[in-house]
């Protein structure tokens, strides 16, 4: 009886398509297309840096979304430690994965931008250095997840490290900024804040639209990734059921 009831449930679970997921997909695709139009056609060309400055939009959008992704990791890690529900762990894991992908984008576009505008591949500039350390921290997070053992243990350890790592980020940023400004004053006008009030309004709009589009993409990927993880978990669960039935 019990087995029968579950047999009914499987297709329902696997073939369900969340409407939120669909909406996010459409939103992200449309948003990215619009931001593309804004970046390449609509927004003006920056005077000193020229065309290359257009890297800035996706660079900053990825960086801020990555940071939000890691914040979500922190939140779900905390929730997992308190409630010990597997779904929280799945959210943290998927969010960290997307955050890591976005950080990788930041770390590749950063040097390209640096090379073109400052003629050096890497500048030990606070934001870039912090991002690099962030990348290492979340790589370490995945090393913990690749340990062998039961999921509960891995999830617990990863959650603890996800919290430690995120709390470390502001301190890392602060110390690096301090280190840089005292010994290698920043000569290059990097990042949005240094450009101060002189930003063209259209540039700001383009940046905001790009950030929003990347955020939507993040939301879609998060839901998709969580759904896939959920599928995997249910699948393993049912496999185990079948294995048991075969043994008995």
């Amino acid at each position, binding site marked *: 009886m019990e087995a029968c009831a579950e047999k009914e449930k499987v297709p329902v679970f696997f073939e369900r398509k969340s409407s939120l997921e669909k909406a996010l997909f459409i939103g992200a695709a449309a948003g990215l297309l619009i931001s593309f139009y804004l970046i390449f056609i609509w927004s003006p060309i920056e005077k000193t840096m020229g065309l290359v400055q257009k890297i800035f939009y996706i660079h900053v959008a990825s960086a801020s979304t990555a940071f939000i992704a890691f914040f979500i990791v922190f939140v779900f890690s905390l929730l997992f430690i308190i409630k010990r529900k597997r779904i929280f762990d799945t959210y943290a894991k998927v969010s960290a994965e997307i955050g890591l992908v976005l950080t990788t984008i930041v770390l590749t576009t950063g040097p390209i931008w640096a090379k073109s505008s400052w003629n050096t591949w890497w500048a030990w500039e606070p934001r870039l250095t912090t991002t690099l350390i962030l990348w290492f921290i979340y790589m370490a997070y995945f090393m913990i997840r690749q340990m062998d053992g*039961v999921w509960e243990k891995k999830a617990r350890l990863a959650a603890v490290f996800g919290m430690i790592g995120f709390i470390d980020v502001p301190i890392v940023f602060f110390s690096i900024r301090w280190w840089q400004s005292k010994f290698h004053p920043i000569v290059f006008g990097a990042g949005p804040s240094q450009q101060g009030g002189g930003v063209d309004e259209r540039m700001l709009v383009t940046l905001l639209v790009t950030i929003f589009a990347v955020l939507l993409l993040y939301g879609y990927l998060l839901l998709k990734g969580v759904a896939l993880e959920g599928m995997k978990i249910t699948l*393993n669960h049912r496999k185990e059921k079948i294995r048991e039935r075969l043994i*008995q």
Partner: protein
Amino acid sequence: MIVARKLTKQADDKFILRGIDLEINKGETVAILGPNGAGKSTLLKVLATLIKPTSGLVSIKGLEMKKSQHEIRKLLGYLPHSSFLYDHFTPLENLVFYGAAYGMDHIEEKAVSLISSVGLSFFLNEPVKNFSRGMVQRVAIARAIIHDPEVLLLDEPHTGLDQGAADTLNSVILTMKEKGTTTLMVTHDFKQAAEICERAVVIKNGKLIANFCLNGKDVNFLHSKYTELVEGGAS
């Protein structure tokens, strides 16, 4: 003394314990029997507060495990497969350390008398790493009871022991029993189980399938009953 209600333990998708209900009275000596992989050691680890159950309740001496873990830990003496001893320390140093960890007073005298009661007075100041398996097990037994536990949890204590060590262990268990200690013992050794246990429970596939008295019964009774239960297809 020990009450377990609907105890389950899940590791990934495998159920190791599937709802164990167990009640053990004060001063009883109970054997836990069952085939390999049935979940006996896991049950003992849950009772020893080493691993948390996935669901279910455990209470020891009326204390609920989740709420008063600290108090419960003081009551338990746990003897697993591994010796829990520091290799390069002497038996005395090991016992004094663990005694202090349990907040005991006059540890030194207590440790010395315990070591002589397991027959190792000659080796008081010899590092444990030079000991044979049987000697290590004797020290491990002494370690498990250094803090006068009210509940003794033993995981296959007779395995690999010579006759002398096994007798020592049995006499330790019986002395503790006289003081009112409750003993729970996972074992494969029917002879020893029949000798010192009053009751036996059988676990198979993470479920408790039998619970019967052993008083006055001999090894053969236990053996045939166990074979009937485990191999007779009851599950």
